[in-house]
C-alpha cells in the first residue's frame, strides 16, 4: 500500500495508517453530523415553537397569538430575539381581537424527585393567575404527578389572587400553600393530600416567581401592548 520510498522510517510507516484512519473517520463523522443538524434544525425549531405556543395558550384562556418578551437590564421589556437568556423571558398572549390576554411566566424549583418546571398565566387587568401547566416533572406516578392531572388542584389556578400592594413593589398577599380543603382566601393554594411536597413545591414556585415578576410586569404593562396587529407566528 505504501510507496517504496516512504517506508524508510519504520515508526512513520506504522503511524501513518493510524492518522489516516482517525482523521478520515473524524472528517466523515463531522460531515455526517453537521449535515443532519442543518437538515433537521428547521423541524426542531418548529416543534419547539409549537410546544411553547400550545403551553402558552393553555395557561392563557382566550389567547390565540403569542409574542415572547425579554426583560432588559434597564428594567423594561422588548421583543425577544435569537440568543436571549430564556430565564429572563416571558410570553405574552393575545386574543383574536388583538387584546392582551395575559403574560405566561416560567418558574422552576426542586420537587419531590427532581426539578419541576411550570408555566403560569397572569392576567394584568384582573391581577390574577388564570392558568398553570406543568412543563416537566418526574414526580411519583399516581401521587406527586397529580399536580399535573388533579382537577381540584388545577382549579386553584383559575383565579389565584396576586393583587399588588399599594406600594407597587410587592404582592398584597403572597401566594401560600394550605392543607387540602382549608383554602379560605383567593391567594391560597389548596394542597393535595398524599402529594404534599409536590403541591407545595408548585406553590413555592408561584410564590417566588410572582413576587419577582408581577410587580415588574404590572408596572411595565404598556411594553406588551401590540403596536399593530402583526401576523400570528413569532
Amino acid at each position: 500500500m505504501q510507496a517504496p520510498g516512504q517506508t524508510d522510517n519504520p515508526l512513520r510507516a506504522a503511524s501513518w495508517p493510524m492518522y489516516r484512519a482517525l482523521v478520515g473517520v473524524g472528517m466523515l463523522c463531522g460531515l455526517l453530523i453537521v449535515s443532519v443538524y442543518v437538515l433537521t434544525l428547521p423541524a426542531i425549531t418548529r416543534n419547539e415553537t409549537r410546544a411553547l405556543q400550545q403551553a402558552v395558550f393553555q395557561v392563557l384562556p382566550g389567547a390565540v397569538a403569542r409574542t415572547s418578551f425579554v426583560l432588559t437590564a434597564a428594567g423594561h421589556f422588548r421583543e425577544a430575539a435569537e440568543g436571549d437568556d430564556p430565564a429572563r423571558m416571558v410570553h405574552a398572549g393575545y386574543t383574536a381581537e388583538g387584546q392582551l390576554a395575559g403574560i405566561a411566566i416560567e418558574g422552576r424549583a426542586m420537587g419531590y424527585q427532581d426539578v419541576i418546571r411550570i408555566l403560569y398565566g397572569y392576567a394584568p387587568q384582573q391581577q390574577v393567575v388564570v392558568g398553570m401547566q406543568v412543563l416537566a416533572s418526574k414526580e411519583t406516578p399516581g401521587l406527586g404527578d397529580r399536580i399535573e392531572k388533579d382537577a381540584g388542584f388545577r382549579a386553584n389556578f383559575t383565579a389565584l389572587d396576586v393583587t399588588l400592594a399599594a406600594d407597587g413593589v410587592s404582592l398584597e398577599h403572597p401566594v401560600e400553600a394550605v392543607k387540602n380543603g382549608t383554602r379560605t382566601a383567593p391567594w391560597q393554594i389548596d394542597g393535595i393530600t398524599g402529594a404534599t411536597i409536590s403541591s407545595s413545591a408548585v406553590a413555592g414556585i408561584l410564590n417566588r416567581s410572582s413576587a419577582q415578576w408581577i410587580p415588574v410586569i404590572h408596572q411595565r404593562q404598556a411594553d406588551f401592548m401590540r403596536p399593530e396587529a402583526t401576523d400570528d407566528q413569532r
Partner: protein
Amino acid sequence: MTSVDRVQPAVSADDFIKGLWRENPVFVQVLGMCPVLAVTNSGINALAMGLATTFVLVLSNTLVSLLRRAIPRQVRIATFILIIASFVTVVDYLIQALSLELHRALGAFISLIVVNCLILGRAEAFASKNTVLRSILDGLGMGLGFTFALLCLGGVREILGSGALFGIALFPAGFQPWIVMLLPSGGFFTLGLWLLLFNYLRARRLEERGEAQGVVP
C-alpha cells in the same frame, strides 16, 4: 484456480436469527442494561428506544465493516466510538425533529446509546471481522432482539403499572394500578423475573436434551 485461500463464510439466515432469541442481547448476554431498565416504563418509550438502538447498531455495523481494512488495530476502539457517537447524534436530532414529546420522555438516554456495550460489542466482535451484508444482518438481528426485550419489559410494566398498553386502557375502571411497576424498583423486579423465566426455559431445554446440568453461567 479455486478460491480456497479466501474462504468467506456465506451469508446465512443465522446471522439474523441468532440475535432474536438464542443470543438475545438482554436476556442471554445481559448487555446494555441501563436503557433496558430506564426507559421501559411504557410500551411506546420501549419501542422508540429499541428502534433508535437498532438504527445506530445497523449503521455503525455497516460503516465499521466497510472500513474494517482501513482501520489499524491500535486505534480501532477509538474509531468505533467516533462512528457510534456520530450516529447517536444523528438519531438524537431525528427524534427531536419527529416528536418533541418522545424526545423529552427518553431524555438523556438517547445520548446514552453511545455507551451501550451492545453496540461497541457488536462492532468489535462481529462487524470488524465480517462482510458488510453479514454485519447488517447481525446488527438488524441484535437490534430487533434488543427491541423485543425492551418491549417485554415495557409491556409488563405499563400493563401492571398504569393498566394500559401503548396508552390504551385494558382494564375496567376499578383496576388499581401497581404504581411500583413504574418506579425504578419495578424495572429491577421485572427484568429479574424475565431473566428467571429465561433461565428456567434454558434449564428445561438442556434437561430435555439429556445434558442434565441446567446450571446458569
